């Protein structure tokens, strides 16, 4: 074989696809021809460095934590707390309770909250009413999710942890407000309620009375007996 033929086989040789009699001829020529030896040695050396050398700087030690942190930050709040479904359910339920209390407090006097909400809903031009309505839809969704979560948790025999709820609840309320752009005046009473005595509220929510049928969304909205 001539050098020009051997050069045509460099790729196949470096890609490890040269075999059989062709490879034998290739190796034999390489042993005899200094020029091809040098050319191939240079390429093999370059390939060897590319394959094994590690000149790049190291990754930051906290790289994995940053990746996982960003992943967690992009997940919805209910999914971030998923590891303990019972705790998540209670947290969401407590949030729903605090939200409902905030609406009750913010609405005028001690009139039946449902009446106030209906009045507010009718005032479709009022931006605050729009915010309340959005928040109400969010609360209804939360209660549905929470009821399902509580049922599942109880059927699995899980217990409820309560010690970390106040801080988490405040965090969730802030998150809820950030997403729904609740007016500050409505947000503040909820935060105050979150730091208050929520335990009784939770108990009343977790164990619905026998007299209560499985509520429809409208019933949930209007009850406000929290």
């Amino acid at each position, binding site marked *: 074989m001539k050098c020009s033929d051997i050069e045509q086989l*460099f*790729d196949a040789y*470096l*890609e490890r696809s040269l075999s059989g009699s062709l490879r034998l001829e290739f190796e034999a020529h390489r042993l005899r021809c200094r020029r091809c*030896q*040098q*050319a191939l*040695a*240079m*390429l*093999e*050396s*370059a*390939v*060897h*460095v*590319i*394959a*094994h*050398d*590690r*000149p*790049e*700087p*190291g*990754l*930051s030690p906290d*790289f*994995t934590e*940053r*990746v*996982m942190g*960003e*992943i*967690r930050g*992009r997940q919805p709040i209910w*999914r971030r707390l*998923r590891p303990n479904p019972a705790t998540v359910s209670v947290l969401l339920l407590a949030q729903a309770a605090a939200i409902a209390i905030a609406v009750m407090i913010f609405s005028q006097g001690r009139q039946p909250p449902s009446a106030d909400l209906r009045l507010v809903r009718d005032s479709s031009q009022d931006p605050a009413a729009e915010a309340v309505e959005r928040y109400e839809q969010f609360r209804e969704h939360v209660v549905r999710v929470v009821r399902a979560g509580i049922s599942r948790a109880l059927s699995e025999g899980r217990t409820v942890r309560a010690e970390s709820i106040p801080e988490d609840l405040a965090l969730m309320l802030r998150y809820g407000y950030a997403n729904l752009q609740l007016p500050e005046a409505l947000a503040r009473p909820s935060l105050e309620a979150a730091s208050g005595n929520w335990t009784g509220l939770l108990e009343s929510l977790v164990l619905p009375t026998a007299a209560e049928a499985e509520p429809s969304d409208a019933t949930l909205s209007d009850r406000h007996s929290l």
Partner: protein
Amino acid sequence: MSRQDEARLVARAQRGNAEAFRELVDAYKDRLFAFVWRILRNHHEAEDICQSAFVKAYESLASYSSEYAFSTWLFTIAYRLSLNHLRKSRRAGGEIDFARLSDDQAGAGEVLASSEEARRLREMIWQAVDQLTPAQKSAVLLFYREGMSCQEIGQVLDMPAVTVKSHLHRAREKLRGLLGSAIVQEWMAVQWLNDSSLH
């Protein structure tokens, strides 16, 4: 990591198990970073791209098919993010910002070659590699460093396997031209292949 272990972790991650995905991150982060860094030649940018690639992979897990290796899919995402980044910074032509390169070397990895000649030759090789186009450089890195087949490389670079072979061929020709003109004799004198400092 074996394909079986990888498949198990991916399946768990697809069911929402973040800890399973953490294991995948730890398994592939160094290799992915090495690949991206070689393309971008900037430490912080390479870390950002790698982080974005992992996050994007997690968010797209539902669309991942076990027909391909997870690493192939991950490198595909990272390669495309790297190319987008290069296009934005207008360095797709393979130009090297030597000022930034010198800053980046402050955190460089271990020097493997102990002799001065071997160190110099190693630097020349990497400088030659840096003059390849992104596609040529990626093909070379994925083939020789990651051990991917031309078909797998084609999936990463979104091109047919025959085009990958063409890129490998052109890359080798270019390397031969860049390296051969200056140091042919020196290769043989140093007996590069027997340099145990690379092992």
